C-alpha cells in the first residue's frame, strides 16, 4: 500500500481521479471547476487600479478556488516529502531534449534552466517569465485553462472549449518544435 502511494501513478489512476473533481464540484456547490480564475482573483485583490475587469467581489467569487489553490500547494509539499521517485520519460523524448542540451530528465523541471540563477539567462527568462506571462494572458483571454476548458469544458461537450484546447495544442506545438529549438539551439 505504501509502495502504491510513493510510486509514480499510471494515467488510468490519475486521470479518473482528476475527472471526478468536475461532478464532485457541481454536486457540492454547483460550480464549474477551474483553476486559472485564481490568477484574476489575486490581481483583483492586490492591484486592481481602475481596470474594470478586476473590479468585482473577488472575495466571495474566488474564496472557493483560492482555498483550493492553497490546497494544491500543500498537496505538492506532501507529495514531495513522502516520495522523490521520478517519472520514467520516454527514450525518444530524452534523445530530443539531449539534442537541445537538456541532458537530464531527473526531477520535475530541467534544473539548470528552472533555477534562480537560470532565470537570468535568455532561455530561463523566456521559458519562465515570458512563458508565465503568456499563460496568464492567454488563460484569461480564452476564459479558461487546462482545467476549465480541457477537463471541465470537454466533459460538458462545449464546442468553445474544444476550440480553446485546439489552440492550446497549436501554441504548445509551436513552442516545442519552433521556439524551444531556436532558444536552446542545441548549444546550451
Amino acid at each position, binding site marked *: 500500500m505504501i509502495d502504491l502511494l510513493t510510486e509514480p501513478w499510471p494515467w488510468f489512476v490519475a486521470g479518473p481521479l482528476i475527472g471526478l473533481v468536475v461532478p464532485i464540484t457541481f454536486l457540492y456547490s454547483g460550480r464549474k471547476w477551474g483553476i486559472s480564475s485564481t490568477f484574476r482573483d489575486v490581481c483583483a485583490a492586490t492591484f486592481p487600479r481602475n481596470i474594470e475587469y478586476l473590479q468585482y467581489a473577488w472575495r466571495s467569487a474566488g474564496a472557493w478556488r483560492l482555498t483550493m489553490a492553497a490546497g494544491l500547494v500543500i498537496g505538492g509539499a506532501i507529495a514531495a516529502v513522502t516520495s522523490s521517485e521520478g517519472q520514467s520519460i520516454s527514450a525518444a523524448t530524452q534523445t530530443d531534449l539531449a539534442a537541445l542540451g537538456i541532458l537530464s530528465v531527473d526531477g520535475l523541471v530541467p534544473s539548470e534552466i528552472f533555477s534562480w540563477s537560470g532565470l537570468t539567462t535568455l532561455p530561463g527568462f523566456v521559458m519562465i517569465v515570458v512563458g*508565465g506571462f503568456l499563460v496568464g494572458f492567454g488563460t484569461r483571454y480564452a476564459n479558461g485553462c487546462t482545467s476549465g476548458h480541457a477537463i471541465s469544458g470537454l466533459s460538458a461537450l462545449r464546442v468553445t472549449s474544444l476550440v480553446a484546447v485546439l489552440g492550446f495544442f497549436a501554441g504548445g506545438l509551436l513552442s516545442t518544435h519552433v521556439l524551444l529549438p531556436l532558444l536552446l539551439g542545441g548549444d546550451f
Partner: protein
Amino acid sequence: MAAHASGSSDRASQGDAAEEGPERLWPYLLVGIVLGIVFTRSGVISWFRIQEMFRFQSFHMFGIIGSAVAVGGIGIQLIKRFDARPMTDRPMDMPSDSFSAPGWQYWIGGTVFGLGWGLLGACPGPIYVLFGNGVTVIAAAFLSALLGVWVYGAIRHFLPHS
C-alpha cells in the same frame, strides 16, 4: 450524496426553510491537497511529461486528459439525467447545451496560452503544485502570469472577442 438528498427533501417536506447547508471552504482545501498529490505522483507537473505530450512520444498525458474527460463527462450526464441539485444553498451553474459559435478569444487566447504552456511546461494548477514541491523559481512564472492577467484586463477592449 443519496443520503444527503433524501435528508434535505425530508426537511423540505417539513417546511424547513434552511433545507440546504452553507458552502464551507474546507472541502475545497481537501480537493486541492488531493489534486496536488495526484498531479505530482502522475507527473502532470513534470516539464518533461509536457514535452513528451507535445512531441507525441508518450500516451501518458493523453491518457490522463482523456480519462479525466471521460469520467467528468459521465458525471455531468448523470447529474443532468437525475437533475441533481448542489448540496449547498447555491444554483447549479451547469453550462447550457445551446450551441454558440466559438469567438476569437478561444482561438487566439487558446493559442497564446499554448505558447506559454509549451515554454513553461506548466499550466495554472501545476504552477501552484510545483511551488509546493519546492521549485521556488516557479514563483517568478506566477508573478509574470499575474502581470499577463493584468495586461489582459487593461487592453481587453482592444482585443477581438466573439
